[in-house]
């Protein structure tokens, strides 16, 4: 009986980790929807994690407040990043966000009150199934409505041609900043949930490995829709657990996946027209919606 409980806990933990990865993929997807690839999700996750953890440890705030703090700090940081990178496009923006990831990790290592290289421990274990499932549902509802919203159509216009969008009177700058902020909020919340799940955070957890994982997830799943981000997050989150043989060579596998998918299936798994969808979705697509 206790074996069964142990495996339930183990799968629960796995499920939570997958939800967090999916959240990070979605956070990255939001900026892609606006036409720019921002790899700064790990940075905002770190900021959310550290701010909420410090609040929990030193001020003993209720978890809901800690989450709020994470969302706010994530939003503010994202706004700052968006303002600095306002003039950057595509490749240059991606590089800038890579640099920001590195800087956040460096600062976390240097600053004494974040615990430096040994990290921050003693974070209360607040994250449970209720919070995680609530988070997952909130994300699903948000993106389901977002994909059907007028804002999303503006962003799609912007993605295809910023010049044309501007000529139609769309405030491109505001759109870029707000998508970045949304991404920052999601990543910050993911960071807080993750911190209060493990009870411990350290700068290396937000480093290059995480960037690679998120990148693999969105490239594999497909960058064209939020379904792609979810799919990619699920695959990258779950498969290594079940194919234990590859965990030791995980780096090779992620790198190889990135390369092969970009060469052979650039739109990701979500672009495959496989009869895997529900009959309802399939019928809708056939009907031409």
């Amino acid at each position, binding site marked *: 009986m206790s074996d069964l409980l142990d495996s339930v806990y183990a799968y629960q933990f796995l499920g939570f980790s997958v939800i967090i990865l999916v959240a990070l993929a979605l956070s990255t997807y939001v900026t892609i929807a606006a036409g720019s690839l921002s790899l700064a999700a790990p940075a905002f996750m770190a900021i959310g994690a550290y701010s909420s953890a410090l609040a929990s440890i030193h001020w003993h705030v209720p978890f809901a407040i800690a989450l709020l703090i994470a969302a706010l700090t994530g939003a503010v940081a994202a706004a700052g990043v968006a303002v*600095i990178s306002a003039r950057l496009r595509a490749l*240059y923006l991606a590089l800038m966000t890579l640099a920001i990831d590195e800087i956040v990790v460096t600062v976390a290592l240097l600053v004494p009150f974040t615990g430096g290289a040994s990290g921050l421990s003693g974070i209360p274990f607040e994250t449970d199934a209720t919070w995680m499932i609530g988070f997952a549902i909130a994300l699903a509802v948000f993106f389901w409505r977002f994909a059907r919203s007028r804002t999303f159509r503006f962003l799609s216009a912007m993605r295809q041609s910023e010049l044309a969008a501007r000529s139609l009177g769309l405030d491109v700058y505001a759109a870029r900043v707000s998508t970045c902020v949304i991404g920052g909020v999601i990543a910050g919340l993911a960071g807080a949930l993750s911190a209060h799940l493990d009870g411990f955070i350290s700068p290396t957890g937000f480093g290059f490995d995480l960037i690679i994982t998120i990148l693999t997830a969105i490239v594999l799943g497909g960058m064209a829709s939020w379904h792609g981000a979810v799919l990619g997050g699920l695959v990258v989150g779950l498969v290594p657990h079940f194919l234990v043989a590859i965990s030791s060579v995980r780096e090779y596998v992620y*790198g190889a996946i990135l390369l092969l998918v970009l060469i052979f299936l650039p739109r990701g798994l979500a672009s495959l027209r496989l009869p895997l969808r529900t009959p309802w979705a399939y019928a809708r697509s056939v009907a031409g919606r």
Partner: protein
Amino acid sequence: MNGQQFFNILWLACLYGLFAVGLNLIMGVARVLNLAHPAVFTWGALAAWLVIADLHTPAWAGFLAALATGMVLGAVLELAAFRPLRRRGADELTVAIASIGLLTILVGAARSATGASFLTFAPGSLPEGRLVLPGLVATPAELAIIGVTLSLVLLLTLYLRRSANGIAIRAAVYSDEVAAINGVNVNRVYLATVIVGSALGALSGLLLGWSFNSVNYQMGEPFILRGIAIIFLGGFGSVPGALVGALVLAASEVISVVYIGSGIRELVPFAMIVAILLLRPQGLLPIAHEDRA
């Protein structure tokens, strides 16, 4: 600021410069941001170590090993990744992401090859010692860095200016379509450039490993951020920009360590990126390109 610190800036700038020239050469000609360059850097050092420390060959064999490794890796990168992507019409960002995948693979391979340990060169296998000059102390490695960088850059400049192939390369930088119309074999130019650029990167890895007597699979990691910083500073794809950017970065790092403290060092590249974006986003010495005319 004394003579020793000026010297430190000089050799650090040369090290960064050698690395960045390779990176910017690939960027400017093949129009690829090769984020796997830091991994080629690491493998240059590793190959030299394997040859010198494991197989006990003389130092010059290590240099050749580093060069050869760089060239082979460059060829693999171009043929296995950049060319297929180019054929599919991939944009710069996509190729950069693919190169991140390659970076991961190569670093993983380096980790397996070294068992994640810090390798050193046995005493005497590479020139050591100290050269005491008035006002400063220099090691053979540091002098070699300066010598190698300056001579290779001079050779490269002469080649690009005077030789027929060099002119073809410069034409391709400005516009590969126009160059192709004029009979330049653009594919061959790309391949040659990636090979040469990677060779420079591998060589800089060996030089770093020699000067600190330490080789490990993560030695290229700090160069990811610094490579990005130098690219932003100098101008994307600009070889002279790479040198100037390397000098600015090296000087800023040394000066900030001297006057502020060593903890600040890792923040300097980032500060440089933000500064250049605010002051001169196209970089200090941007290249001439058809889209930019």
